[in-house]
């Protein structure tokens, strides 16, 4: 077993924490947006769809800078958060999670939307005719049937968050132990003389983490398919 150095452990646990919170925070919102896009028609839907997909096509540095302008100390949202709740987002790990969530958002919405569109609306109508309320139908029919989609969204979002670099370094900088996630730590090491070995070690950790997550998701997905089918 290879011993991890404290710095490696720091970067690894921070990355996991950031990615987890990006998914935990982003998934419910992604679900809501996906549901609206899949089930509702309204003027400006194309525009909303485009906005949701922006982080996918924009350079990450633009996303990071936009977040800094909005959530920074002097930004409209950042100043308000600071004044009312005493909360700072920029240059914190929570900010890193926000940046990751924004970057992963389109991927999560797409995955959920696809599985929502695959749910047979007649099942939902049937439940309604049997007296179930809207919330009931959502909780007992729609949600379970979109389970695999949600799982895919969570895995994609998690993976995208683990790899997030551009928006993160722009929005929350590269503070060791606070915002220096795995990709940022690798970046720092390749700019350090004789840091190549350390960078390689972290790269190997990143690969192992990715493989582990993929294997885990595969096992879960198989189980889920069996539950849904059975």
């Amino acid at each position, binding site marked *: 077993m290879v011993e991890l150095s404290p710095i490696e452990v720091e970067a690894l646990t921070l990355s996991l924490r950031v990615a987890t919170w990006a998914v935990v925070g982003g998934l419910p919102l992604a679900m809501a947006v996906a549901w609206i896009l899949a089930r509702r028609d309204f003027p400006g839907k194309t525009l909303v769809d485009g906005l949701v997909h922006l982080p996918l096509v924009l350079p990450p540095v633009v996303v990071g800078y936009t977040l800094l302008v909005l959530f920074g100390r002097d930004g409209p949202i950042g100043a308000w958060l600071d004044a009312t709740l005493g909360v700072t987002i920029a240059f914190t790990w929570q900010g890193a999670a926000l940046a990751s969530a924004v970057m992963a958002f389109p991927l999560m919405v797409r995955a959920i939307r696809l599985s929502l569109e695959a749910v047979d609306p007649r099942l939902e109508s049937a439940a309604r005719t049997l007296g179930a309320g809207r919330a009931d139908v959502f909780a007992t029919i729609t949600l379970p049937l979109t389970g695999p989609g949600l799982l895919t969204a969570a895995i994609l979002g998690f993976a995208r968050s683990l790899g997030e670099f551009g928006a993160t370094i722009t929005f929350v900088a590269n503070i060791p132990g606070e915002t220096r996630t795995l990709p940022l730590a690798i970046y720092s090491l390749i*700019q350090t003389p004789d840091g190549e070995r350390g960078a390689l070690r972290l790269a190997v950790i990143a690969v192992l983490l990715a493989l582990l997550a993929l294997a885990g998701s595969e096992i879960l997905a198989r189980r889920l398919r069996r*539950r849904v089918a059975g």
Partner: protein
Amino acid sequence: MTPWCALARVAAGLAGLCLLASAAGAGTSIHIFAAASTTDAVRAIAARYERGHDTRVRVVVAASSTIAKQIAAGAPADIYLSANVAWMDWLEDRGEIVPASRTVLLRNRLVVVAPEGGRELDALAELPAYLGDRRLAMGDPAHVPAGIYARDALRGLDLWSALKPRTAFASDVRAALELVAQREAAAGMVYATDARISDGVGVVAEVPQRHHAPIRYPVAIVDGRDRPAVRRVFRYLRGSEAAEIWREHGFVRADGT
């Protein structure tokens, strides 16, 4: 188990990991935002300070310009160490530092480096020929202090117009150093202190100092951060124990020692 439960389980597992992750690290923590060229020295000084004090000293390094912008945007910096006067002025003009704390800490000089084993230059005028069809690595002169000094020096020597199309701009001086160490650039303009820390490069020429602003490293406490724990670290950076480490890394202190 319903799909929902499966998801909940994964979430719970991950949340557990997070708790584990957040349990580590507490106590006073001081952030030094320092010019990339001071990376190793500041880290060594921070480590030495931590050994004798119950304080965590975190060192954040990037180009002086990058960290100045981050401080202006509200980054949690307590102390700012810049590789030029201009970026310190920029922060001071914005009221982001404590003016009374500001002082010049270090001096440095610029050299031309090449991958280890490179031939020494007789004069800088040889540089275009020396590069052949390859590039000269330097900090981006739009904002990186090392790049600004280098551009001004080359301008003064009437070499800038010939060399400008042959440059490879890097995001900070250490990135420029790394381009040379990796043999991707034929030569680079970095500080003498950078040249010392990399085994992969050697100094092939000194850069005359008369064409660029004197290379000075001002240091200051960030506005709103002036508290005893910060002052202690600030004093330590300028003290005799740190002086030893600055010297080991090739820096000359402002008073010439």
